[in-house]
């Protein structure tokens, strides 16, 4: 089997490749942030005129909040009542599973094709 000889890449081509890779990387990580789609939904159900009792805090908890700098219940109310929203649809869960399984499937198939070329050239090449 003939050995594969790669073409040489110009300096400009190398720079372009790095720029493309960086743009894809930063884009994929920052786009959800820019679109404000990143992070979990949190809701805070703050009662009117909150007291430590209405926030469900016992005396030891109150002592700790005070030590942490939250001297009155109003200042700690948002932290205490904040909750994540874990509701989701089965459709979005299935979509995620398809995306993950599809990704690994594509990658393993392409990798296998490339790997066979490597092994053939490595062990049959001489």
């Amino acid at each position, binding site marked *: 089997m003939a*050995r*594969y000889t*790669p*073409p040489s890449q110009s300096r400009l081509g*190398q*720079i372009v*490749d*790095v720029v*493309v*890779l*960086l743009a*894809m*990387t*930063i*884009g*994929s*990580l*920052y786009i*959800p*942030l820019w679109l404000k*789609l*990143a*992070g*979990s*939904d949190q809701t805070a159900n703050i009662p009117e005129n909150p007291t430590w009792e209405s926030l469900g*805090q016992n005396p*030891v*908890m109150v002592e*700790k*909040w005070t*030590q*942490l700098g939250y001297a009155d219940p109003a200042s*700690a109310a948002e*932290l205490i009542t*904040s*909750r*994540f929203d*874990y509701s*989701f649809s089965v459709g*979005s*869960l299935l979509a*995620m599973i398809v*995306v*993950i399984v599809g*990704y*690994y499937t*594509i*990658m*393993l198939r*392409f*990798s*296998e094709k*490339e*790997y*066979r070329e*490597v*092994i053939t050239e*490595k*062990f049959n*090449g001489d």
Partner: protein
Amino acid sequence: MTDFDITSGEADGMGPRGAKVGLLRVLGPAHVWALGVGIVLVGEYMGWNFAVGKGGAYAALIACWFAGLLYSCVAMIDSEVTSTVAAAGGQYTQAKHIVGPLMAFNVGLYLVFAYTMLEAANAITVGFLIDTVAVMSGHDGLDQRPFIVLAIMFLAWLNYRGVLATLTFSLVITAIAFSAIIILFLATSPIFGGDVLRHKELITDLPYGWLGILAAMHFGLWYYLGIEGTTQAAEEVRSPARALPFGTLAGIMTLLIAATLTWYVCVGLMPWEYLGQAGVPLFDAARLSGSTFLMILLGIGTLFATLASANGCINDASRAWFAMGRDHYLPSWFGAVHPVYRTPYRSIIFLVPIALIFALGAPLDQVITFSILSGLLEYTFMPINVILFRKKWPLDTIKRGYEHPFHPLPAIVLLCLCGIAFFAVFLGYGTQLVAMIVFYVIVSLWFHFWRYRFVRRAEQFTMPWPRPQGY
């Protein structure tokens, strides 16, 4: 059986074929331990506590142990493969020899992004800690950015100047940071006469039920994320077959202890609602203990843990980037070794601005999530990797420095736990998960149809192994 010398100068491990200089083999098992624990120990000082926010105190403990099981599987699998594939790039080089080039390219990117994002998260924490201390001493409104930039630039310079000094620095500050956790535990624990912990009054039921336990797995990974980075030092340790398994397995044991102690002390000192959103929870725990000595010690511990972690991350990310450059997966310019310091200096410098972009422009929990997602994709690759490794080169075909027991049970357990962790990330951070996987699909197509044409085929396979079975 092929009995080969994995430190051979003829094989992978001493730079590219025809290279004049390679990386220096100067590290021992303690440095490997320091690299692994040094990167991860910061997870006890910040970030793990978001698991408390996602599911409550008990959920975080259960997540801590399940994540510990996940990482024990990672360490066992990694130790076997790495004790055989002793070359810079770690899992990237493993994938290149065992699965194929495209998988290797993806794994290389997982490593670079997991470590670079972790480095950014560490720098953010340095800034936050300094700001907290400034506020406590009456100086409001401190600009954190100069401290973030300074931390990253100083550690990049240290990495540029040489691996031995870098990891010796990590060894010392990691040991101090780990000792600080032990001292905090001893000083507050009722076993030794302390009476400040209030578990009974502070721990509540599960606020989100069992779903919260699953959700907590997301940040439960943060207790240990990065321990697999020990393999990046493979080309710079004196005895890879001995030092890598020893350093990695000792590292995961250290972290299991540190994680449990950290949880125990923190949930006994502050309400879970605060702990779940705290920026520097161990420092806060020390403040609440009422001891000025502990507060100063844990402040120093937090600073050292973040610096050690960022230091190790720069080391590991640059090795992975360097290894990909050396193989022409990326422009070969990155595959250069410094003629004097023998470090991958171009890769070290190149990754600095990327870390800065995220450290200065993204919130901490998002940066951590990016890091965790890259790590999670990497852990999902590992069971595939070890199953193919055993299939292509059964135990009697090549000599291993370490053989992990009960194969394929650890691989199956790891795969199942990765599935749970993906679901945990999906609960709240599904958009990032899909965005990141779409990125990897696009970049895989770019590599397969464009970039791979510049790669020599046979030269990627550098280990002196026999032909894989089935090929």
